[in-house]
């Protein structure tokens, strides 16, 4: 596959260069989603989020997801990056994006990237509230 894909597990997400990174002479557009820490979950105030990962597997799954997207749609570049460690409200924790000749492909692919990452990539999020902390989605 000749598509350029770029995945990573990082201490912090820098969104400032993502559109420059996705830029390609054959692309008419890029679509990027950034996930950030929200202040409230079910009206409970979140102090911070803690992310941990099984890094070797996470990188492998992210690479698979990027390649799947590049096979499903005509993309020129794909990026998937996730942060680990303690994150405060408004901090970015994940960034996914794609560039393509026509906007349909990059929009649909971008949505696929984040939806599939949430389903499959071994990353665990603990919500820290004032008086307790909870591993998200752990229990039904």
């Amino acid at each position, binding site marked *: 596959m000749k598509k350029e894909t770029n995945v990573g597990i990082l201490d912090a997400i820098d969104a400032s260069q993502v559109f420059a990174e996705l830029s390609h002479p054959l692309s008419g557009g890029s679509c990027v989603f950034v996930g950030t820490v929200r202040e409230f979950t079910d009206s409970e105030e979140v102090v911070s989020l803690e992310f941990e990962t099984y890094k070797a597997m996470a990188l492998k799954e992210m690479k698979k997801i990027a390649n799947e997207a590049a096979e499903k749609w005509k993309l020129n570049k794909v990026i998937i990056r996730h942060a680990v460690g303690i994150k405060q409200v408004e901090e970015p924790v994940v960034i996914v994006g794609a560039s393509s000749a026509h906007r349909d492909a990059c929009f649909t692919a971008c949505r696929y990237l984040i939806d599939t990452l949430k389903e499959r990539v071994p990353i665990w999020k603990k919500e820290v509230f004032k008086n307790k902390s909870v591993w998200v*989605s752990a229990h039904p």
Partner: protein
Amino acid sequence: MEVLLFGIARDIVGEGSFRFDAGESAPGSVSDLKEKLKNIFPEFRKLSSLAVAVNSTYAEDGYRLKDGDEIAIIPPVSGG
């Protein structure tokens, strides 16, 4: 046989990994591993789901565990 633990799995066991002694008590397959773990630590039964990765790839229940496999317990993921 050593099993890597992450997230709530590590909290349940209280450590980052768990060791099965060789011989009779060592699980032979992925489903066997899940069942043995649930028997030793009943808290695993309360989770929404429980998956196992072998050599950093999701493994089917029927997979036969081999010497040298890197085995990890994957509790419900929640990235993003």
